């Protein structure tokens, strides 16, 4: 009975819609690809595979989603491809990482900007955290900053690359303490940056909360602070925010992950995705797998993401002006 009502409802709404959106009525009629601008096994890839696993359910999209990895140059390769070559028919989506792609577009040399894409919905929120090795002499942000002030440019600090969330956090910390760090971008993403901290190649590191949480549980590192507006209650209730530690750092470096389509995708397709995708992220199987893996979620609708993108773009333009 339920399906019958649903069918009638769908039929009626189809009737009401103009012919141009008829295509959206069939949409999606085949599997949908999601391009991930990072390699298989990275945090974005791993989370994208989890949050899309129930796409094939009848009440979500009715078609499965598969992942295509297009890694390279901190995500630039994948997003360049997505902005210039991807089909605008709703069958090619991409995962976005904020602030990465906005910061990269501000620095230039890429063929996209925030205006090249249409957000669909946000699934994850992974704040940057400041970490040190387990045997480090630093036990708090205050220790670290005190040392950095006395030894300008001596605190080697690893992060996943240039103009990614980790780098933004480092820039904000430098601005807030008016001191100088030696930021060391690594090749190989957050995992390589974490290895550098654990092995003692660097004195400190900025990394994803999810990866740091795991490394701390394994007894390899200490987490000194979270670059967010509030503490993370679920995973790190005892770790203070940088604000609490006296540094004026907001949540600009928080790594937001979600799905987007290229500009020019039919509005009806965007609307359908914007309505269904949050349901997919909210699915209880998705939530349980994400929480098991230590990946914090924050589901935001298309409108909320649009606001967030605009706000990020403004703060990042300000922050990166002098560089």
């Amino acid at each position, binding site marked *: 009975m339920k399906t019958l009502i649903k069918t009638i409802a769908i039929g009626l709404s189809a009737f009401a819609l103009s012919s141009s959106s008829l295509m959206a009525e069939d949409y999606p009629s085949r599997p949908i*690809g999601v391009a991930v601008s990072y*390699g*298989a*096994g*990275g945090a974005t*890839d*791993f989370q994208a*595979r*989890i949050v899309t*696993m129930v796409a094939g359910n009848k009440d979500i999209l009715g078609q499965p989603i598969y992942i*295509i*990895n*297009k890694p*390279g*140059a*901190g995500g*630039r*390769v994948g997003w*360049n*491809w997505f902005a*210039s070559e991807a089909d605008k028919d709703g069958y090619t989506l991409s995962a976005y990482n904020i602030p990465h792609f906005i910061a*990269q577009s501000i*620095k230039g*040399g890429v063929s996209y900007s925030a205006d090249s894409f249409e957000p669909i919905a946000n699934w994850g929120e992974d704040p940057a955290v400041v970490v040190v090795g387990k045997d480090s002499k630093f036990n708090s942000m205050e220790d670290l900053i005190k040392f950095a002030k006395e030894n300008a*440019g*001596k*605190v*080697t600090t690893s992060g996943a*690359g*240039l*103009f990614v969330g980790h780098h933004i956090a480092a820039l904000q910390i430098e601005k807030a303490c008016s001191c100088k760090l*030696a930021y*060391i*971008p*690594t*090749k*190989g993403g957050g*995992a*390589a940056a*974490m*290895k*550098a901290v*654990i*092995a*003692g*190649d*660097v004195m400190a590191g900025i990394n994803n909360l999810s990866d740091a949480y*795991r*490394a701390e*549980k*394994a*007894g*390899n590192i200490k987490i000194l602070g979270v670059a967010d507006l509030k503490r993370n209650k679920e995973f790190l209730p005892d770790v203070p925010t940088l604000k609490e530690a006296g540094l004026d750092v907001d949540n600009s470096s928080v790594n937001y992950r979600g799905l987007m389509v290229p500009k020019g995708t039919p509005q009806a397709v965007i609307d359908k995705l914007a309505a269904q995708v949050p349901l997919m992220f909210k699915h209880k199987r998705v939530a349980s*797998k994400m*929480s*098991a*893996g*230590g990946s914090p979620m924050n589901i935001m609708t298309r409108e909320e993401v649009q606001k967030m993108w605009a706000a990020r773009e403004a703060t990042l333009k300000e922050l990166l002006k002098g560089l």
Partner: protein
Amino acid sequence: MEFLNHFGGVFEPISFMLLLVGTIGGLILGATPGLSPTMAVALLIPFTFQLAPTQGLILLGAAYTSTVAGGAVSAILLKIPGAPANIATSLDGFEMAKKGEGARALHLSFLSSGVGGIIGVLLLIFLTPLLAKWALAFGPSHLFWLAILGVTVIGSLDSKSFVKGLLSGCIGLWLSMIGYDDIQGAQRFIFSSSLTGGINIIPALIGLFAIPQVLDMFAKGRRNAEIETVQVPKQSIMDSARELGRSGRALSIGTIVGSIIGLIPGVGGQIAGLVAYDQSRKFSKHKKKFGTGHSEGVIAAESANNAMVGPSLVPLLTLSIPGSPTAAVLLGGLLIHGIFPGTDLFDNHPKVAWTFINSMLVGQVLMVIFGIYTATWAARIARAPQPIMAAAVMVLALFGSYSVQQSMSDVYIMLTLGVGMFFLEKFGFSAAPLVLGLILGPIAEANFIQGALISNAQNGPLEYFLTGPLNIFLVVLVIASVGYSFWTNMLEQKETTLEAGAKS
């Protein structure tokens, strides 16, 4: 000895079935051109969503071991290395297959994979705490020197000419710079939009190795009225086993080099096979035979690339740091079940951890059995008429390059490199040094930049790169390796001038 208590877990009906599925599936996926072990394991991840953690990991572990070995099949029979790990295998393996000894090459490759693989997993079981320290010992400066050590091997990897080997190595180093620089994001040598992503190693491998050979076959096909077909003699498995026993030196060099290099995060898997190949040639009594279809080459390369599998998981299982892309994918397979590698894994989920490790041990044995079983008829490919063979390899090459990231750019790059290599080969250059340059370039560069950045915050680059026992040890190895190449080269030149003198 805790692992013995959990051996039963591997032989539970569902677990064992998954082990079989993973092994056979892995062999097939590994033999498919373009599907690297990382991709194959990533493809299986969704299936593990539905399985219990132990079972999921058994599937992934079995697939990992057997895809690495399966890559040897296409490397030997088609000259398409499935992954960087199999490059060295194709150097002698394909020459053997051309002579009709494909079955022998496959037998030897699976047997030595099995031996290397089992020793690698045993190292993982018994020496993990020790090995974890070793894996962490390599900082940017050491990885830089290690990559340079690899570069010094380039010249000697090409047995025909030292200078041409170095030259093609330089071409490879240059090719590796194309695209965005991974650390700073600068754009380099992007002549066409296809190159923005740089040169992906898998399409490059396919192009450099398979395409020149396809073109050769086409070029020959018309002229020879009678198309040459190869006789494939029967090869008994006992003969192969005996031959392996006689090649103890290549086998042990391969296994040792593979285990040591496999440990180093971010480097190991790609170069283990090539370094082992080069080392076992330097120590072999039959130096000249390498590259002409010599079984020791296959044995060294394959024992190395499977010996690497166990140790490459050490950083992941103990420190929760994935040391290779494949390990990163395996990490995902653990995380979806809420299991964190590291102390948590061994303390709170010992059954998961040990069953997984044991399954890789049993998986190696199954892999050898199925591999050898299929070898005999897989080797009959060599009897296919050359034009058909060339067409089939061409199709596989196109499919394989496209499937890596569903990108036509990769196909164009593959074809361009392939045609270029065809002409370079006419001038006596070979693909192996070029590929080594392509692999080592980014490792050397990224670690040099990182080391330089770190050293600027400390006491300067000289101290950072040249002090400390490990740095000095590696520098000495680099000097010794360069010296050795020069010395043997001089010696050979003397011989040839002497011979020339004797003739006149």
